């Protein structure tokens, strides 16, 4: 029951499929991901083409976002690490935010509304978490963390920690994807209701306000959700990595 992509998007998908279909699988999510990426890159190039000490326009917009992410990170992992991880977290924040918001545009689809995208993002966080965990503490030191403080509890603690670590990317990806998809679904259903109700407008005159006036409200909530989910994803990514790199506390 995959929702059919809207006409323009479907057209783009078909066209790209003809060109690249032999090598790369193309669907609406991938096309949207590329559109979002290209949009962000253009914004970045526009903003950085004339960097000024007193920011304006696109530069200001990006600076605000980047500084917010940087502040969030500095609070949790210190200035040095924050600077190192800024490109990753900043890209995550930018990509997720734009992806979420673009889903609100009728006719377009949020790339983050597809589980594959969010899994890809969560996977990057997952891999980097453990990579830097091992790099920071050494392989043995890092594995010790799985055993726990009491060695004879290892048979119990190792599976628990193992599942816990696996649950992190799982929850991270599901949370973002489910939020975006459900918002998309709700808007889609309300749009369908308009069509159904308008055919029997005389009968349903009193109830027509539901599909007509609810979408804006859902949209407003949607914007809020987009912002919150972006924050949550980036926040948790920072937390996971900083915990993995920090000294053992539990």
């Amino acid at each position, binding site marked *: 029951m995959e929702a059919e992509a809207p006409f323009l998007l479907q057209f783009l998908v078909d066209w790209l499929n003809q060109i690249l279909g032999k090598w790369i699988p193309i669907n609406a999510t991938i096309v949207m991901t590329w559109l979002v990426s290209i949009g962000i*890159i253009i914004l970045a190039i526009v*903003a950085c083409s004339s960097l000024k000490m007193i920011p304006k326009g696109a530069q200001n917009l990006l600076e605000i976002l980047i500084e917010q992410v940087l502040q969030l990170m500095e609070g949790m992992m210190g200035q040095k690490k924050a600077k190192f991880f800024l490109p990753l977290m900043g890209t995550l924040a930018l990509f997720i935010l734009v992806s979420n918001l673009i889903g609100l545009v009728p006719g377009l689809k949020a790339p983050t509304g597809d589980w594959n995208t969010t899994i890809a993002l969560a996977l990057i966080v997952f891999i980097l978490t453990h990579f830097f965990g091992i790099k920071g503490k050494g392989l043995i030191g890092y594995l010790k963390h799985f055993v726990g403080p009491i060695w004879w509890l290892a048979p119990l603690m190792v599976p628990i920690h193992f599942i816990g670590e696996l649950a992190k990317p799982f929850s991270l990806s599901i949370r973002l994807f489910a939020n975006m998809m459900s918002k998309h679904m709700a808007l889609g259903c309300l749009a369908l209701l308009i069509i159904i109700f308008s055919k029997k407008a005389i009968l349903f005159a009193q109830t027509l306000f539901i599909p007509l006036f609810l979408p804006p409200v859902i949209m407003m909530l949607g914007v809020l959700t987009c912002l919150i989910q972006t924050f949550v994803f980036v926040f948790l990514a920072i937390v996971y990595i900083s915990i993995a790199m920090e000294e053992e506390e539990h």
Partner: protein
Amino acid sequence: MEGHGGVISISWQILLVELASFLILLFVLGKFLFKPITKLLENRSNQIKNTFETIEVEKQNIEKIKQDYQNQLNELNKKVGEIIQEATRKGDIQRQEIIAQSQKEANKLVERATAVIEKEKEKAILELKNQTAELSILAASKILERSIDESMAYQLVDDFIEGMNKETLH
């Protein structure tokens, strides 16, 4: 690649393409956005810090210059006061001198005038005395029609003038 599963479905190919797309985005943004922006932010914070430091130094300089000017002003005020005092003192002395000089000159003038007057008076008295004597002798000789020897006549005149002096001059 259409129609694979429902809404919640994982396709490894799509996942890999997404992964690659994101990594490319990460790479591009890292190069074109985060590098320059972090540099800019750093530069800006440095610049702001420098500016504040410069302002602090300038402030101290200004404070010093102000202090200097204040000192100079105080010194000047003191000097001016001294000059005025000096001038006043000199003026006073000159005034005293001038007054003394005038006093002296005035005294001299008065003295001289008094001397002249005294002399004139004496001369007048003498002349008056002589004339009076002659006149008296003439008058007396005519009235009495008898000769009186001259010494007696002068004796008389002297007596008379003495008496007159007592009456008129005093």
